[in-house]
């Protein structure tokens, strides 16, 4: 067992609000320079950049999880993470079925571009990716778990677009694998304010929209190998595995 440094919340150029410098190539170079072992590119309501980032990262020994930062119907942001291309495609289909017919205005919201490994633009995504899905948080959670993924509500204590801002408190019946707390939050302080939670796994990520943010906030995973399955076990503290903030 060893410690793996992970930043599981990174936006690429596909997210309208992310910097155009956040190309797959740059993300991998930055992850390498920051000494990260595991990353996930989690664009708003899209998993499209997962495969290209994984391909570029592989030669550097950096593990890439597929995923997305989904906006649920309640407008709560949730990280949905996957291991395989089959899972990613199935989840991408779920997103596309539930993404409303609202179109992006690049002047207002920013560009939504998909690029290849050479940083060449393949397409501009037309539908606005920061819309809320026509799917409630319980449906998103059930879909992620049916596909074998990890469901992690994002920056839960932020004053906007978080589980707590939208739904008042963490729903006791919600089946999350871990909770992502905001980058500046003290975990002990968070638990003090949310005493109703039963020993949840807490993680932090950079939520990088700009190159200089990537890898500045990470979580360490004490696990056997850098897989989704091992991370799930770390959240449950199985066999000595653990998450260290």
């Amino acid at each position: 067992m060893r410690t793996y440094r992970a930043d599981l919340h990174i936006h690429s150029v596909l997210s309208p609000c992310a910097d155009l410098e956040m190309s797959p190539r740059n993300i991998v170079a930055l992850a390498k320079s920051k000494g990260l072992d595991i990353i996930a590119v989690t664009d708003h309501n899209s998993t499209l950049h997962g495969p290209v980032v994984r391909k570029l990262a592989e030669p550097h020994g950096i593990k890439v999880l597929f995923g997305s930062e989904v906006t649920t119907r309640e407008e709560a942001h949730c990280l949905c993470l996957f291991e395989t291309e089959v899972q990613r495609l199935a989840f991408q289909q779920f997103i596309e079925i539930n993404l409303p017919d609202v179109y992006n205005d690049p002047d207002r919201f920013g560009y939504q571009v998909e690029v290849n490994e050479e940083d060449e633009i393949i397409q501009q995504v037309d539908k606005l990716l920061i819309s809320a899905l026509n799917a409630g948080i319980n449906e998103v959670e059930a879909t992620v778990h049916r596909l074998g993924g990890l469901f992690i509500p994002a920056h839960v204590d932020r004053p906007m677009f978080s589980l707590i801002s939208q739904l008042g408190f963490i729903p006791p019946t919600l089946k999350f694998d871990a909770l992502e707390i905001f980058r500046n939050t003290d975990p002990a302080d968070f638990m003090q304010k949310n005493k109703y939670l039963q020993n949840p796994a807490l993680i932090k990520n950079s939520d990088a929209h700009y190159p200089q943010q990537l890898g500045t906030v990470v979580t360490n995973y004490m696990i056997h190998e850098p897989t989704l399955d091992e991370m799930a076990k770390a959240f449950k503290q199985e066999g000595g595995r653990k998450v260290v903030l």
Partner: protein
Amino acid sequence: MTVDDVVKTLNLKVFCGEEGLSRQVENGYTSDLLSDVMGHADAGSIWITLQSHINIMAVASLKELAGIVLVKGNKPDEDTIRQSNIEGIPILGTDLEAFEISGRLYQLIRGA
């Protein structure tokens, strides 16, 4: 004025929590952020929202609200209905938008 009076005057649908139709209505509050409602809604208010998650019942109960109106044809989730019946806090519905139904409720409560 009771919740039932509001239902009849504004032609609202009653989804559940019928036991609470006799609750007194003192005020109204319109918001989709549950954290905001927890902080600012007054007891005895009718709460107008598009959120249908079960957490709305916890907030309504905590704040002793008179009832909840779901706007734009939204329907409560199944577990939300169960909780509404347990708490006896009615969930009502309208096809109108929050702006429209808030205006009509305001007229009814404050207009006289």
